């Protein structure tokens, strides 16, 4: 294993999350009951995803400044893991909603916003695979990735603040579009933040595996520059 300390940290934090996440006492919040423990699993998907996609967008800008194929590999690998976490976030949200809101899909503004954002990122993957020329693919997908990011952020951060929703946060409700911070007690915070770091590190680990694989595969192309 390469640079293993943070990978071990990811494992320790997530095992802590999976243990303490089930063991601590959670406050009874209305209809949520014990399902509020999902906070340690569903919400970090969004934190991790935003961090990965932001980093991906930064590497796309770096590629446009200096067309190094390595930046393209970083950007696309980060985006792929970000999209994976997005899909998992949406699915876990639907499972949670099925038992709390009464239906897995209730056309809630947050569900629709995220679904559109994910479709835009799916198009990124399709676009990449549609262009056989490596330099053209890297350049066009870098431009598209920056565009996708700046439509993704309004869809999940700005629009949810402007409309009413079943989800915590948003118009007329306390908190940000992700969660109502006032609902968390001290014990939940002590699990929630390590969970966010742990899940993000796990996402980063998967991303680095992808990056290392592509760096080896495209070794000749990178050295040719």
């Amino acid at each position, binding site marked *: *294993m*390469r640079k293993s300390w943070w*990978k071990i940290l990811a*494992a320790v934090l*997530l*095992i802590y999350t*999976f*243990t303490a996440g*089930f*063991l601590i006492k959670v406050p009874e919040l209305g209809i949520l009951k*014990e399902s509020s423990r999902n906070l340690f699993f569903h919400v970090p998907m969004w934190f991790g995803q935003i961090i990965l996609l932001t980093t991906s967008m930064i590497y796309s800008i770096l590629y446009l400044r200096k067309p190094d194929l390595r930046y393209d590999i970083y950007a696309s690998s980060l985006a792929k893991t970000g999209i994976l976490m997005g899909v998992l976030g949406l699915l876990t949200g639907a499972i949670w909603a099925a038992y709390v809101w009464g239906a897995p899909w209730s056309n809630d503004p947050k569900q629709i916003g995220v679904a559109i954002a994910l479709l835009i990122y799916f198009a990124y993957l399709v676009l990449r695979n549609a262009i056989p020329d490596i330099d053209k693919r890297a350049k066009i997908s870098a431009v598209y990735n920056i565009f996708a990011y700046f439509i993704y952020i309004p869809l999940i951060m700005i629009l949810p603040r402007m409309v009413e929703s079943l989800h915590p946060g948003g118009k007329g409700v306390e908190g940000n579009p992700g969660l109502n911070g006032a609902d968390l007690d001290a014990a939940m915070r002590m699990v929630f933040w390590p969970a966010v770091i742990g899940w993000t590190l796990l996402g980063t*680990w*998967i991303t680095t*595996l992808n990056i*290392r*694989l592509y760096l*080896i595969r495209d*070794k000749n192309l990178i050295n040719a520059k």
Partner: protein
Amino acid sequence: MRNKIYWLLSLPCLLFTRFDGYAQSNGVVETTMRSNNKIYVVMAVCITILVGLFIYLVSIDKKIAKIEDRQ
């Protein structure tokens, strides 16, 4: 390598048998794993999946490292 895999696979089984044996010897149903509406069973399942995923990631990581060294 193979021994290691068997050992890891048997971990969840050990957990299961130990607590089950305990239940029989005492004649009590409400053991640790069965208390609180069996929520600890869910916890054990989730931790098993998580540990399994990490073992898989470590093995991929090592394989890539081996290829990187060969370069």
